[in-house]
């Protein structure tokens, strides 16, 4: 896992739900194609504009909703990490289990402007604006969660442990 990522922030508000990121109709599509529909209604330019290494920043209750694997679509698009003031616990688990870092840093969506360049230290749960200013600090993820992320998600761990055919 890359512990320091620098990229552009895409900033969203509170209670961004899973159906917003991964609409029901896209569940019929292969992952590559479904990824083109992330934020289809509230931010239709996202999927074509996002660049590898970009960071999605959101407010409270990020990812309320379904167990559909949104993280798979973010990874497909090259999103490096999710940072939010607060995560829905199912969405949080679903992200790290797909190898996508999800870091809780209270107040982050108000402190960072959309489109701004930021540097995120995933292990330290710290984000700073390249333009300067005080870094924002969250509670670091437990070591075993960092390890799941570092291994690229749970499936990689299961494969290494012999649960999947070689």
């Amino acid at each position, binding site marked *: 896992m890359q512990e320091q990522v620098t990229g552009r922030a895409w900033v969203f508000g509170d209670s961004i739900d899973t159906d917003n990121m991964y609409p*029901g109709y896209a569940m*019929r599509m292969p992952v590559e194609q479904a990824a083109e529909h992330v934020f289809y209604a509230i931010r239709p330019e996202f999927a074509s504009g996002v660049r590898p290494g970009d960071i999605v920043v959101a407010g409270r209750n990020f990812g309320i909703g379904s167990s559909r694997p949104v993280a798979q679509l973010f990874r497909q698009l090259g999103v490096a990490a999710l940072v939010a003031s607060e995560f*829905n616990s199912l969405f949080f688990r679903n992200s790290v289990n797909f190898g996508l870092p999800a870091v809780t840093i209270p107040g982050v969506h108000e402190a960072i402007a959309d489109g701004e360049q930021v540097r995120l230290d995933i292990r330290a749960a710290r984000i700073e604006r390249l333009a300067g200013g005080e870094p924002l600090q969250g509670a670091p993820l437990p070591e075993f969660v960092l390890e799941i992320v570092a291994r690229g*998600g*749970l499936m990689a761990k*299961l494969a290494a442990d012999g649960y999947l055919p070689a």
Partner: protein
Amino acid sequence: MSMTIIEKILARASGSERVGAGDIVVCEIDMTVLIDLQFATMWAPPTRIADPDRLAVIMDHAVPAPTVADADGGVRAREFVKAFGIERFFDVGRHGICHQVIAENGLALPGEVLTCTDSHTCAAGAYNSAARGLGPVEVYSIMCTGRTWFQVAPTIRYELHGERAAVVSGKDVFLHIAGAYGDATNHNIEFGGPGLASLPMHDRRAIATQGAEVSADFTTFPADELCRSYLDERSDRPYQPVDPDPDARYAAVREVDLGALEPYVARPGGVSENALPVSQIERRRVDQCFIGSCANGQIEDLQIAAEVLGGRRVAPGVRLIVTPASQAVYTEAVRRGYVEALAEAGAIVTNSTCGACFGYHMGLLGAGEVCITASTRNFRGRMGSPDAEIYMASPYTVAAAAVAGEIIDPREL
């Protein structure tokens, strides 16, 4: 030992004497449920699994298969249950929405931990279990290893008092709570209090199901006499009811007077701080009415729909879709004449599936349409076009809207 219901269950499942908010525990999972979508989207046959007796496979979200990908998923599911000797396999024909099938077959009993690849798994909290939805890779991992971790969240307790009026259902109780208190992100919800005894099991299940809509981790009820007799009719597995300790610590204790409630409606977009008594809601004209889902496709819900629609007609220009929560509910509804009453009134009674609830098949909404649903979720775009509006209410209020052609107080009928 000052533990809430959920804390006690997680303590037992993790082999700990005591757990409290903030603790991270690794739990043995008593039952894990795989759903059809898992096989259609991310399936690789495992080399070994933890225990075929602690696993169930339920075909629900997309049955009968509306796409070739879903049909291929069904093929993989059938190969898997055969290869690993999974006896609890609910294939098309003995299927139903997973949370209904879990209830009908006693797959979640008091004190147990249940996980499933669907966010509304909290439904089984109605049966005094610690039940929650997890993502597909985590459920796959539990299937392999038999365990997973939880961080114990603080618990919010709702003390129920009084008795609900006949027109008020579990959905209304939930919408009142969601409207008044908003989200419970990273919290558990526990229900109890003297009013519980008057709340039937189908209402409890509707309430527990919707815990996901206020972003809660686990939602749970105690196993009182009503609950135990419900379960004893459906399972002969032994269980140990779990009550909270008298000195359990709660993040908040909130009182609800069931007798003071009236029918509620949530406005489009979500339920949190967005639901009001029907008397305060605009009389919107509706295009589609939906009664179904794991929360409100139960036999009692179909009974209400049939009673409202019996001898009446669905208003011109309105579609009423009724989806039984399981094949068992469907056959019972046929037996009791509900299907006939609904069909004669102009409703469409579908096969049991998730269908319209998640905007996947059988009744999507077009741009500009207005829907009122008794299903679980009214996010923008949930049931089709992002330019459709979805109100949420009880089966009674939805059935009344189907007759009136607009959102009305069902007591006006």
